């Protein structure tokens, strides 16, 4: 009897704790949902808190129109999401090399990887910006340019290559972390499979693509989802490198000023409701992806051996 009461109290506490934290975590989402479909009249009505009296989709229409939502979405998909996918491939290859092979200077490589994770992007953003502005292969173009008196360096700013190139070389957004996750997985991957493949005459590249990749779906799912989410939400680098064709995250980050530039009052109820509507729309794709893949995602993240 006493044990039963004890257990009841424990589970009561557990649920109180969990529900109060869930409230905090779900709060902004609920706030967005409520205000996204709310008539602006209700925003000013003090009797309306959570349940709106008048529902409308006009906010959404207004928001999509002011933000050029579909164009930005296209930019985001073509530039950010594509580089997210490229990044997963390049990081996976590099991580396999680091996890499986012994070579001189491996400690140095590991240290470099740690630096990758550690150094904030603020530190390298200005030199990178200038590099992308005058792309020059080790100063060769500049030398020829000086000799002939012509400007030969290439300006890559405002092109998608600013994001593609680092992704191809595995130094894109949060690449260090992606490589780290891959590495931890590959280290725990059974060696026997690969040795069998070597005996059958496959070279390491063949082994990697034919044997290792097909059996590491868990870690690939994890890194792909994380990479896509990071790129979807990234506003810092795009706002530096681009001056037009912004991806969605940049516009959402500055959403009130976008409305202001389009001639709307920032403090207007209609503006605020419209902003909430586009914010919700911005959250929807990652949220849907998450809801559909939730079980797999949680399972893969807890199993992928992020912790070695």
């Amino acid at each position, binding site marked *: 009897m006493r044990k039963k009461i004890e257990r009841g109290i424990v589970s009561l506490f557990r649920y109180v704790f969990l529900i109060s934290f869930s409230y905090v975590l779900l709060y902004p989402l609920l706030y967005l949902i409520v205000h996204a479909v709310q008539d602006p009249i209700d925003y000013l009505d003090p009797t309306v808190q959570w349940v709106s009296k008048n529902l409308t989709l006009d906010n959404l229409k207004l928001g999509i129109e002011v933000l050029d939502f579909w164009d930005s979405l296209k930019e985001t998909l073509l530039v950010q999401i594509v580089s997210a996918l490229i990044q997963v491939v390049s990081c996976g290859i590099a991580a396999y090399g680091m996890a499986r092979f*012994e070579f001189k200077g491996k400690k140095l490589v590991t240290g470099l990887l740690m630096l990758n994770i550690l150094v904030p992007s603020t530190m390298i953003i200005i030199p990178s910006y200038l590099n992308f502005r005058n792309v020059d292969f080790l100063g060769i173009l500049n030398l020829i340019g000086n000799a002939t008196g012509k400007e030969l360096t290439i300006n890559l700013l405002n092109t998608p290559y600013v994001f593609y190139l680092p992704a191809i070389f*595995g130094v894109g957004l949060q690449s260090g972390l992606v490589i780290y996750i891959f590495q931890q997985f590959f280290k725990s991957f059974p060696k026997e499979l690969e040795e069998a493949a070597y005996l059958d005459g496959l070279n390491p590249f063949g082994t990697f693509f034919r044997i290792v990749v097909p059996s590491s779906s868990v870690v690939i799912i994890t890194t792909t989802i994380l990479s896509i989410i990071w790129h979807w939400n990234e506003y810092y680098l795009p706002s530096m490198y681009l001056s037009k064709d912004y991806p969605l995250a940049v516009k959402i980050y500055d959403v009130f000023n976008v409305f202001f530039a389009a001639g709307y009052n920032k403090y207007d109820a209609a503006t605020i409701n419209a902003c909430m509507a586009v914010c919700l729309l911005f959250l929807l794709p990652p949220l849907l992806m998450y809801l559909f893949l939730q079980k797999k995602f949680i399972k893969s993240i807890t*199993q992928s051996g992020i912790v070695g």
Partner: protein
Amino acid sequence: MKKTIKQKKARGIEQVKSAYGYKFIALWLIGQVLFFIGPILDSLQYSFSNVEMTSGKVETMFCGLEHYREIFNANPLYADNLRDAVGNMCTSLPIIMSLSLVMALILNQKFRGRLAFRGIFFLPVIIASGVIMYVLQSEYVSVPLFNMASGTKYEYGGMIDFNEILRELELPTQILKLFSQYLSNVFGLIWSCGVQIILFLSGLQSIPEQLYEVSKIEGATKWEEFWYLTIPMLKDVILLVLVYTMITLFTAVDNPVIAQTYSTMRDSQIYDQSSAMLWAYFVLVGIIMGIVLLAYNHFCLKKWGGES
């Protein structure tokens, strides 16, 4: 004679394998030189020189420690921001660590609705990008939870006025201040626990079930089990979470130092001084992380018999 041939062959295979290692990471290494080490060295150079931009070209003139002297002596905000960044880390780190450990412990138990709660607790990983948070924290929207304890912006502060309760307690003002600071940050703190919970959870799941059975048979209480079994088994994960949390706190975009350098860089376009700011900060962060890691190694790992 035969022996030497064999040895040679063995070395040959090792060499071939290490060559493949280099091949796997070749692209990554090139990327590191082009997009990571290069920019870092550039930024180090900027911090010691006067930088002038003329039509996109950079001119640097070496000027020694001038900028470093300037930011500490002439800049009124920098030293304060440094102090705030470090102080913020010192107060947030223990809370985030313990909070996420407790949540992971709870989520690891078996109870009804576990999957749903896990889903909710992973939400921050999906949407804690800062974009939406930034919008919701801006001055145009009044989200009650965000202004819970500040109470300056809006008259109603969520459902419960925590400031009022604190005042009723009649604590000394210093402690009161600390409490209300924590309360106003509660939202952000809970939101920054997402990845840490995942890491702890995967660590908890890698502890073999048998150990718990043994400790039960030996008659250990839950409390002893936690301190003598769970925590020592988690020592690697704790280290990982410690480092990860420190990095995210130090490099977050809303970190006062990072925000200041960003605005000097982007709005005022002063590249040399902002580089100096970042490097001074980076050295400080390195020292602090070194101290924390040494302390962790010395006190905790020794106690738990860690060999790493």
